[in-house]
């Protein structure tokens, strides 16, 4: 019987040191640590997130997939800049970079642009790398559209479903898992598969990818890029071919936000997934949230990268397989 942890003492110490570094990093910048509940009354409507539920005598609760909704309600209450380090839960995610429960580092910066926030993310990652004397170079800043065009010769913001299907075929990228529902979410599935197969593994240096396709906007704002294509004000950071953080210029328009959540439910219905009740408290709060940039980073993945480990069970003491 494997009752032992999958991490050795060194990995436990490294985790503790990196946690201290993060807390010190934000303390110096006067960003307040907060702790919002792991339980929520409402779930997320993201098509591809599996919310775990808890049946309590008081009723059903959702284990949070990220502290996003609660933290936004704090921002709307006038909290100022805040960060949180804590457990989040996502069902049906298991792999060498995934576990059902992991530690999320999420923070919000009222008044920051997305670029300012991503620079702060880069500074934090660099500080983490320096702590463990891990090699790190100055980041590469690139747009999603440029990366995609360089790899496939196609503008992803204008590509039709047929074009993307053709790209998968000519580049021998398997897409058997995608069911064609002939909607924007299907286009997202193709873009994600092409990007993850042909582009992401090559992002070895620390890379900030901005201007995501508008269909993958989630809860970010939309703006027109230099080619006048609508793009999401969303950025992701990759290092050693691994996604580390996902940041937004946050959408604070309650009408647009309701539209986004309803669209998610529509995509869910098309795919036979249950509809998710909208979080009315979030929708009521969002009108009071100051313009902000926010980012979520997988803390365990950061620890993996700065300590040169390739499997998440080397940094989490008891992954799902050992519970």
């Amino acid at each position, binding site marked *: 019987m494997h009752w032992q942890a999958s991490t050795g003492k060194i990995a436990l110490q490294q985790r503790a040191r990196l946690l201290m570094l993060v807390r010190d990093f934000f303390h110096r910048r006067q960003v307040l640590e907060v702790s919002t509940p792991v339980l929520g009354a409402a779930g997320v409507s*993201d*098509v*591809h997130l599996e919310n775990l539920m808890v049946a309590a005598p008081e009723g059903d609760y959702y284990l949070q997939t990220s502290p996003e909704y609660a933290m936004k309600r704090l921002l709307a209450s006038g909290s100022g800049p805040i960060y949180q380090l804590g457990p989040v839960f996502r069902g*049906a*995610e*298991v*792999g*060498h*970079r*995934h576990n059902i429960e992991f530690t999320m580092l999420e923070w919000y910066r009222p008044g920051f642009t997305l670029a300012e926030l991503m620079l702060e993310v880069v500074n934090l990652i660099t500080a983490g790398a320096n702590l463990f004397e891990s090699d790190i170079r100055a980041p590469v800043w690139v747009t999603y559209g440029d990366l995609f065009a360089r790899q496939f010769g196609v503008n992803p913001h204008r590509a039709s479903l047929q074009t993307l299907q053709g790209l998968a075929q000519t580049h*021998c990228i*398997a*897409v*058997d*898992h*995608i069911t064609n529902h002939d909607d924007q979410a299907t286009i*997202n*599935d193709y873009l*994600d*598969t092409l*990007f*993850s*197969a042909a582009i*992401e593994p090559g992002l070895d240096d620390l890379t900030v990818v901005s201007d995501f396709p508008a269909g*993958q906007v*989630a809860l970010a704002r939309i703006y027109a890029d230099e080619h006048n294509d609508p793009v999401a004000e969303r950025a*992701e950071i990759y290092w050693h071919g691994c*996604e580390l953080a*996902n940041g937004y210029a946050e959408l604070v328009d309650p009408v647009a936000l309701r539209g986004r959540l309803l669209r998610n439910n529509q995509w869910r219905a098309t795919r036979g997934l249950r509809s998710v009740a909208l979080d009315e408290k979030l929708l009521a709060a969002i009108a009071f949230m100051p313009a902000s940039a926010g980012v979520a980073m997988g803390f365990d993945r950061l620890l993996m990268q700065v300590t040169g480990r390739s499997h998440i069970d080397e940094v989490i003491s008891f992954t799902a397989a050992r519970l």
Partner: protein
Amino acid sequence: MASFSTNEFKSGLKVMLEGDPCSIVENEFVKPGKGQAFSRVKLRNLKSGRVWERTFKSGESLEGADVLEIDMEYMYNDGEYWHFMKTDGSFEQMGADKAAVSDCLNWLKEQNTYLVTLWNDMPIAVTPPNFVELEIVETDPGLKGDTAQGGTKPARLSTGAQVKVPLFINIGEVVRVDTRTGEYQNRVKS
């Protein structure tokens, strides 16, 4: 046969895909930022030997394949089937057809032991050991004393396989060959 879900996929697992038995070579869980989770899987078709890449939705499942790999001794060819015998003391014999032995024909020698892949108790593939020792049946006369590096010449082995051998090798001598590359390794003292 049981079926296996994507979270049970691991290398070496034998599953059915498009009617053919396959062995999983590699399984990678992929979950793009906000995107759909899936498994990118490499599978080796055990009949053709070809490697397929497929993606599966998380939670999708494949039927297990009743595949067994056992050591068997090659006995003889009756013109249609190549007959092998179990080495477990049962003396049980099985005939493999041309499709099953085709990749191994160059290296088949009586009384040698091979890894035979059985699917539903039928041989579908025969894998030779990494090295086999075979007799030279045809080559130009050897040049005495020419053991220096350099020159090679074509030679035919008892199985019909063609290999390049050093100039000093003669007909009737036994040589050791790497079956993965088809390259001569050394002369075997007989």
